[in-house]
């Protein structure tokens, strides 16, 4: 009976007008299913077998796309019950949770799908990097992908303002204040133009007012629901289309039909994600804090996990560096990768790893492109270390608490931070970045012809060792000898050494201070100069270890690409260095020019 109906149904004119081919599994219909379907024809008809292995792609790009679709659908539904005004927004979210049938589930799904999408997009980027899939001919698509990562984060950011709870308000206050700290066009940024005021600066442009209120909420609503998804969709089309048109970084032999081999995998991935999302959204409620109140900030006030790394970064640098310059450089650096990585190896498979040793330290390094993989993964790990610190090691007043320590709002912790004098700090910065200067072959040859075959090696040793010593001197000499400019107004101790030696947040300086106190000046000063010498030589030695690699890289990349790679690499390591200076030495700024709002 049913069979009969089915047979006749397929003979009707309506059916035939909708489905232009039959569904028997023949090579012909397999092709027709793909190019006869507007949704599927973004796929090629046949695809290399290697490119669709699950353990190769993990389906991360496709899952991200599916999550975007989930977010669009749940988002459209949520919009039916949401009004973007400060009077209504919070109550509407409450209503969604308590008064609207299935509203809570939809909101949970929207929130958790957004979190999951951030995860899958980041993992997708790491996967593409590790398998070298950004290499020619796919450089441009990597750039598009990086911009889509930025948009994913921006969508998350504009999205969590909408509930108008405390998390929303303070995240947006901080974000908008970063705009106010933009160099040149921000009212509180360095080198502000003379006509910039709170009434016309970058923050005003972003939030549509001088305070975060109705205008800001409406703007973020429009950005979140219309503007950014619109631009994102355009980029998405380009991204997907270019995957197909650019062909694969590595051409493999055997090809298979996209229907059913790829389409079935995509369907299974979507199914799997749907199940996970449902279980997650039923089990865990999307957070909603108290109603937004500009006069009270929750203590501590933490961003969602994907921005906690940025929040933690803001602790160590001025807002214009941590909030504007560094994120900009990270995005720029990511986009540069395919254009500065000229190594054709490592495409189409994950890096093969091997054990090697650097001195006594065992290292797990990739065989084929060790520098690229190590530096990229170091950056990713650094970012997640910052997230870990921000999430688990920060308590009330954003003070350091170990994860196992109990938080206390009454803990007495007299934190103290001091600036290095500008000239010393500038010397430290300059000698750090000079470590990146290579010694080109032409200069090596000239040195060898003048001073014998040993001359280039000796010059390199003098150069790196000397810079290392200068760095150690520029850091420790002022810390030990400089007077404290805050004494006696804000500081009880006349020197930086004594002030930081009594602070609990500068363990290295405290250790040195106690050492000198115990040894007395007669023994203490020689010991200190010995420490400076040893520290400097260790830093210089590290620079020397990379000297030959550095010179080779310079010869291979040429000046401009080398400057970009080395500059970005030194900046990344410099961020780590500044974090160490802050956490272990109690140093606030290396260079401080408050008159220009310029501090490093």
């Amino acid at each position, binding site marked *: 009976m049913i069979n009969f109906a089915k047979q006749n149904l397929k003979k009707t004119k309506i059916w035939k007008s909708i489905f232009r081919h039959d569904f028997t599994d023949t090579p012909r219909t397999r092709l027709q299913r793909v190019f006869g379907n507007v949704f599927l024809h973004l796929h090629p008809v046949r695809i290399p077998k290697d490119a669709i292995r699950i353990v190769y792609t993990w389906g991360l790009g496709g899952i991200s796309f599916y999550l975007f679709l989930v977010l669009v659908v749940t988002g459209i539904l949520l919009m039916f019950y949401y009004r973007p005004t400060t009077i209504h927004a919070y109550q509407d979210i409450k209503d969604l949770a308590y008064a609207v049938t299935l509203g809570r589930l939809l909101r949970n799904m929207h929130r958790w799908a957004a979190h999951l999408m951030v995860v899958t997009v980041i993992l997708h980027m790491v996967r593409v990097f590790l398998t070298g899939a950004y290499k020619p001919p796919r450089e441009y698509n990597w750039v598009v992908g990086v911009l889509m990562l930025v948009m994913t984060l921006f969508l998350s950011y504009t999205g969590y303002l909408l509930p108008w709870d405390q998390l929303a308000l303070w995240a947006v206050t*901080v974000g908008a*204040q970063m705009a106010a*700290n933009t160099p040149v066009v921000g009212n509180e940024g360095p080198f502000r133009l003379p006509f910039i005021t709170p009434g016309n600066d970058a923050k005003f442009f972003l939030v549509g007012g001088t305070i975060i209120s109705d205008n800001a909420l409406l703007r973020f609503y429009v950005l979140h629901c219309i503007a950014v998804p619109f631009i994102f969709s355009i980029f998405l089309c380009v991204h997907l289309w270019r995957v197909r048109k650019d062909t694969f970084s590595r051409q493999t032999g055997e090809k298979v039909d996209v229907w059913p081999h790829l389409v079935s995998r995509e369907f299974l991935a979507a199914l799997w994600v749907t199940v996970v999302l449902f279980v997650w959204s039923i089990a865990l409620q999307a957070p909603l804090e108290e109603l937004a109140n*500009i006069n009270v900030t*929750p203590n501590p*006030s933490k961003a969602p996990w994907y921005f906690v790394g940025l929040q933690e970064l*803001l*602790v160590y640098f001025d*807002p214009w560096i941590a909030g504007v310059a560094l994120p900009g450089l990270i995005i720029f650096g990511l986009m540069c990768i395919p254009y500065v990585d000229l190594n054709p190896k490592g495409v189409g498979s994950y890096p093969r790893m091997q054990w090697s040793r650097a001195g006594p330290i065992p290292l797990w390094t990739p065989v084929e492109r060790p520098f690229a993989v190590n530096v990229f993964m170091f950056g990713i790990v650094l970012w997640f270390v910052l997230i870990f610190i921000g999430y688990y090691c920060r308590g009330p*007043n954003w003070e350091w608490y170990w994860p196992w320590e109990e938080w206390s709002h009454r803990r007495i912790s007299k934190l103290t931070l001091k600036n290095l004098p500008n000239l010393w700090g500038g010397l430290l910065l300059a000698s750090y970045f000079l470590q990146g200067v290579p010694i080109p072959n032409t200069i090596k040859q000239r040195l060898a012809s003048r001073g014998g075959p040993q001359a280039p090696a000796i010059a390199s040793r003098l150069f790196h060792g000397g810079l290392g010593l200068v760095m150690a001197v520029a850091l420790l000499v002022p810390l030990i000898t400089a007077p404290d400019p805050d004494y006696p107004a804000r500081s009880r101790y006349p020197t930086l050494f004594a002030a930081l030696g009594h602070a609990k947040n500068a363990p290295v300086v405290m250790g040195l201070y106690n050492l000198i106190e115990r040894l007395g000046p007669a023994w203490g000063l020689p010991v200190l100069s010995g420490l400076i010498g040893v520290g400097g030589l260790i830093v210089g030695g590290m620079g020397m270890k990379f000297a030959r690699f550095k010179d080779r890289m310079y010869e291979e990349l040429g000046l401009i690409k080398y400057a970009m790679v080395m500059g970005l690499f030194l900046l990344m390591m410099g961020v780590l260095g500044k974090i160490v200076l802050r956490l272990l030495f109690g140093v606030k700024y290396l260079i401080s020019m408050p008159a220009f709002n310029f501090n490093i």
Partner: protein
Amino acid sequence: MQANLEARFGRRQFLLKAGWAFFYLFLGGWLLSNIRFLFPNVLYEPSLTFKAGKPEEYPLGVSEKWKKAQRAWIIRTSEGFYCLWARCTHLGCTPNWFEAEGRFKCPCHGSNFNPPGDVLAGPAPKPLWRCAIRLTEDGQLLIDKGRLENRPGLREKGEFFLPMKA
């Protein structure tokens, strides 16, 4: 040769190119001018001034009386009054007052300030802002959060400090 030059740079070509140039100039100018569209001309924001009651109501020290309603601390020293805007100079969160340590501490990135407003620790680059403060005719304190100063030397005088012996 002559004909070629005429075809490339002649009057017809000049008019054509000038026409297109003006069209694109207009289009580009109009698109750019829409940036101005995003700067609102009229704002509906709360007033930045408020009356904070009689000076006699304030004992020596930091008063948190107006923090929840007006986001400001009124501080009385033996010399007189000043008012700190409770907005961290780092990224604009509202710090909390800790009497035991004599510090304002910000919950967002951990900046510490002392009662005069100077930075003691954390990432804040500048001292807390002081608001203009004066007495009204009916003998109340009038705070203006629209007029701010944080430079040592300037913030302790003029409209930012109200002398009154305790």
